[in-house]
């Protein structure tokens, strides 16, 4: 989160935090994870949509609107809070698709799909990654073949968040070897969604199979063969949201682990009084502040479409992806045996962070993206 927020943003974060605390505290999140097929009741998501969770990346003329004029920065405030509460809900996929429609959709496409997404009545997901492969912009292999003026899609997409709940997908594919995105209704003939197991107990993921799905020309988002830029754009939005979520996770876990160190006594002293532990908390505080800083910088860059957004999302993802899991496991260690029990909430946070770390590029893969920007092949310096 930004260290300086506008008054409107402060109010917005507070409203979202209070809503989450009231409606979905951790015991409720656990209960929903077990009993609700989607991980949340539909009415809860609609209430969130009323608070603005789905409208921040959509311009006012399409029924959306941001809090501060920087819609993605506003949305990362929600993502960070949802990290703190390990909240369910398709925040990332729905917003990425809403942004895709708002930025690249035709009037008809926007009019068909945006109202439902904005009100929370419908849900969407973005199908980028493929089973067994990484969800990276350059890794798309799913092919759509031309059939007269139409397209036929056959193949599979993997790890699609909330796909079983989604009413519509944006699918990244290749036409004649060139990246092209399609809007595919979930009930189109030939589409099969199969839920998969996921380490995050709270959110839901699925594999989507397309068997001879016939797509009319007006299902193409933007230009046939011209989607490389939009895929990169959506990828950056997704990664910025993941980073905010992970930063929220570590900030919250560090806070309650610190509290625990004050309350827990051994040898007649609080754990917080041991220098060996104090120094570990100091390191974790530094990494957490750095995580919050780099997540905020990535959000700003993507929001303003600045030239360095490609690099800054990868900086943030590789840094936080590595640090978050290290901090969380150290917090388990500081809790002692209780930290590896089912009843303690720590594992819910670790599951969330591990899931975010792996999807839309691992830290390793994001470092390779960065390596590609360093000018290693140039023979002379700047």
């Amino acid at each position, binding site marked *: 989160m930004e*260290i*300086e927020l506008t008054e409107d943003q402060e109010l917005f974060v507070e409203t979202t935090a209070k809503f989450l605390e009231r409606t979905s505290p951790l015991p409720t999140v656990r209960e929903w994870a077990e009993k609700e097929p989607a991980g949340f009741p539909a009415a809860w998501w609609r209430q969130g949509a009323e608070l603005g969770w789905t409208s921040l990346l959509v311009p006012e003329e399409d029924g959306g609107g941001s809090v501060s004029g920087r819609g993605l920065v506003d949305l990362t405030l929600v993502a960070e809070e949802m990290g703190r509460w390990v909240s369910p809900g398709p925040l990332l996929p729905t917003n990425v698709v809403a942004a895709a429609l708002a930025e690249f959709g035709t009037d008809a496409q926007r009019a068909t799909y945006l109202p439902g997404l904005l009100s929370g009545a419908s849900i969407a997901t973005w199908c980028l990654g493929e089973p067994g492969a990484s969800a990276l912009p350059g890794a798309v292999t799913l092919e759509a073949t031309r059939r007269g003026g139409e397209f036929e899609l056959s193949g599979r997409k993997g790890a699609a968040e909330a796909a079983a709940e989604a009413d519509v997908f944006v699918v990244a594919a290749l036409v004649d070897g060139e990246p092209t995105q399609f809007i595919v209704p979930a009930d189109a003939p030939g589409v099969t969604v199969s839920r998969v197991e996921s380490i995050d107990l709270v959110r839901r993921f699925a594999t989507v199979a397309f068997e001879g799905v016939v797509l009319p020309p007006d299902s193409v988002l933007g230009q046939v063969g011209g989607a490389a830029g939009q895929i990169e754009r959506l990828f950056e939005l997704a990664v910025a949201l993941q980073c905010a979520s992970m930063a929220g996770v570590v900030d919250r876990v560090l806070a309650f682990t*610190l509290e625990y*160190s*004050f309350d827990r006594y051994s040898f007649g002293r*609080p754990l*917080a*009084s041991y*220098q060996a532990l*104090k*120094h570990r*908390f*100091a*390191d974790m*505080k*530094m990494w957490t*502040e*750095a995580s*919050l*800083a*780099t997540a*905020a*910088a990535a959000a700003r860059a993507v929001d303003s479409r600045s030239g360095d957004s490609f*690099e*800054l999302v990868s*900086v943030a993802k*590789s*840094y936080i992806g590595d640090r978050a899991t290290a901090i969380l496991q150290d917090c388990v260690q500081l809790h002692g045996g209780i930290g590896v029990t089912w009843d303690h909430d720590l594992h819910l946070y670790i599951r969330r962070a591990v899931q975010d770390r792996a999807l839309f590029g691992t830290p*390793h893969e994001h*470092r*390779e*993206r*960065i*390596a590609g920007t*360093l*000018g*290693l*092949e140039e*023979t002379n*310096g*700047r």
Partner: protein
Amino acid sequence: MVDDTAAGQVESVEEFRLRARTWLAENLPRLNGRTNSQLMALDEMGIRARELQRTLSDGGFAGICFPKEYGGLGLSLPYQVAFTQESVPYEMPVVFNTPTFSILAATLLDFGTEEQKRAHIPKMLTGEELWVQFLSEPSGGSDLAGLVTRATRDGDVFILNGSKIWSSGAFRADYALCLARTEWHVPKHRGLTCFIVKVHQPGIEVQQIKMVNGANEFCQEFFDDVAIPAENVLGQVDDGWTVATRLLQHERDAVGGGSPYTSGIHGGRGDRGIGRSDLVTLAQATGRTGDPRVRQLLAEARVSDVVNGQLIGRVTKGIAAGRYPAPAGSLMRLYGATSGERLTDIALEIAGAGATVWEEGDLAGQKGIEFLMRQGGSLGGGSNEMQRNIISERVLGMPREYAADKDRPFDEVRHNTAPSRPPGREMAPQG
């Protein structure tokens, strides 16, 4: 000139940047592949740096964030950042940055009398005065308030005796801020006084210390009945700890990279992602840019630099806005030092055997030597362990460490002693 035009409009950062770009191209020599760090090593006495600082001053680009009444431009940090970015290809007098501008001028601004500020800050900005800090002593580094250099009042002067160490570049410096004990019958923090001391004067001997990388930057000073005029007290007598605490905060901010008073970059390690990393040059020189492991290391180094800058931005803003306590500056200092250790390791890895056997001038060989000084950044300006104490106790509010000297008069506390003369001067030759 810089601020108000005839129309009363303030020059924007971008207008300032463009003006700086033109001025730099016309007035400063280009680096042409060298770094300011390398040039600084060649300019041992800072003669070249003083000329360059004078040039900046004459051109109206010195002291961008310093108040106008003391010779600065009175502008905000974004102007300084823009200037530094534009200055990357040019020779810059970076030796003035730390400690002169970022630590000592900053402390003078906080505590100096009007006379003290007017006497010194304009001269720093015109390149006439380089400063140094006399803080650490041979008797101990981390427990600064336990120092034993003595200043005894004698009418209008204080008489200084003792020794200071780890002062950087004292041999070329003109003035020092020196912390000394003026009262022994009170707890340690309450008997210290901060003095402005002319470095080159009778009674002060400066010795350079040779480090493992061959550098002679660090010094030890010996004070033998040095008379300091009472008007050179900075802050109040016996309240030097208040001054020192602020000075150390400026030091942490400076070492962490968060000072508004520095200008230009050193080149090589620690430039926070501004300019091209010499690790890239190193990987090219060793022919390993295609090695996936090396590419990971180069990207990790880049991430480390970029996040460093982002953390500085966040913590600096947080302190200014009152959302974080001032000791949060230690977060930047600890990040800078620990990431610096990692960058040194990465350089050694990429350099391979070239870090141990090399032809003169090879970058890989330089990386081997830098590895020998790997811990330098984690020791200077308060060790990493001290920073971790500060963060845990004063940022996170965890219980303070036990101190045997707490609330006890200093002369009743067990402490080390320090030599007041160079070793061997008053003793029979050994062997």
